[in-house]
């Protein structure tokens, strides 16, 4: 639910001294509203997360360019519906290894917060059917397999000792356009099996 408006500079003016002004509109209400932090700015993006935080509303945004005494027409977005169109971020993934096991602890992605002090809202509270797809790659056997889970802890047991395993997790919500973003791949090595070491000696 971090919603950022982005645009490209006008044709042929990429290098010119151009500034931009942004406005936004809540569908069903009466007026276009100013975004004061995005008035006469040079950058080509504007964070509208605060203004679009009620995800059950729908929004429009528009931007115009000014250079010298010239002023462009407004360029306007389509109707933006955060509830359906937001991209679901990856969960936080913590891996802990043992000789033959890896424990995976997942923390659901959080909804964008206006202030860090605000209490967190987890995406699961908005989408109760949130699921996780855990993908595990065994670098020794070169095999990959995945598992769909809904809870936040998973222990992979009976793994091979002293072996590098790579894990990435994707949270997803069934629905047409909710794209998902997998977590960074994390690789951990299971511990050496002291017993078999002793046996070899």
């Amino acid at each position, binding site marked *: 639910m971090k919603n950022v408006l982005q645009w490209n500079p006008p044709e042929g003016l990429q290098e010119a001294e151009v500034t931009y002004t942004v406005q936004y509109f809540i569908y069903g209400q009466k007026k276009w509203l100013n975004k004061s932090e995005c008035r006469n700015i040079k950058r080509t993006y504007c964070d509208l997360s605060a203004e679009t935080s009620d995800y059950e509303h729908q929004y429009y945004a528009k931007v115009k360019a000014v250079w010298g005494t010239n002023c462009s027409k407004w360029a306007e977005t389509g109707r933006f519906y955060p509830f359906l169109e937001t991209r679901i971020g990856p969960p936080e993934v913590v891996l802990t290894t043992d000789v033959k096991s890896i424990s995976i602890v997942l923390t659901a992605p959080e909804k964008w917060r206006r202030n860090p002090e605000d209490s967190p809202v987890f995406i699961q509270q908005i989408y109760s059917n949130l699921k996780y797809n855990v993908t595990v790659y065994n670098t020794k056997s070169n095999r990959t397999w995945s598992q*769909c889970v809904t809870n936040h802890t998973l222990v992979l047991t009976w793994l091979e000792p002293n072996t590098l395993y790579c894990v990435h997790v994707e949270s997803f919500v069934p629905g047409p356009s909710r794209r998902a973003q997998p977590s960074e791949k994390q690789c951990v090595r299971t511990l050496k099996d002291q017993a078999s070491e002793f046996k070899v000696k």
Partner: protein
Amino acid sequence: AGALAAPQNLSVHSTNLKHLLRWSPVVVPGGTVSYSVEYQGEYESLYASHIWIPSSRCSPAVGPECDVTDDITANVQYNLRVRATLGSQTSAWSTLEHPFHRNSTILTPPGLDVTKDGFHLVIELEDLGPQFEFLVFYWRRESGAKEQVKTVRRGGIPVHLETMEPGAPYCVKAQTFAKAIGRHSAFSQADCVEVQGEALPLAL
């Protein structure tokens, strides 16, 4: 209606929710005949019977066959019709004798590949698209073993089913579940794998 003959013997062949409309080709020596396919759902026939919608993939179609899977998107009766075109000549419409309902689709057992990665039982099911889930049954082949069942939401990717213990084979069979029509296929052939026993650590 021109002098061109209308297509005959319309029929729908549907397997795993993939629906093919077929008809007898209209043969004109020296001519290349093309066809147009249109459909009408229960809504159109009840509320707007004059409305027929061109098929997504077959307006026009070259051969005597049309994949209407993307047109049949609800659990209602669908009327389907075809006509032939040759140059400026157009035949009359031929309409499917009995409306088609996707509930009648034939469901085949899914392709199932059972493997292991160390102690891990890993399967891969045939990718039949988002319309399907799979019910996977697995058990340890030993007396008194209980059958377990898991739902697998997607085919085409290796999925972890179970962590195996040595000493007995693990067997797996699966059936497709067509979510849209709430029907199952027959079971696939059962397939088994076994984990070799691990030598016990040397006692001190």
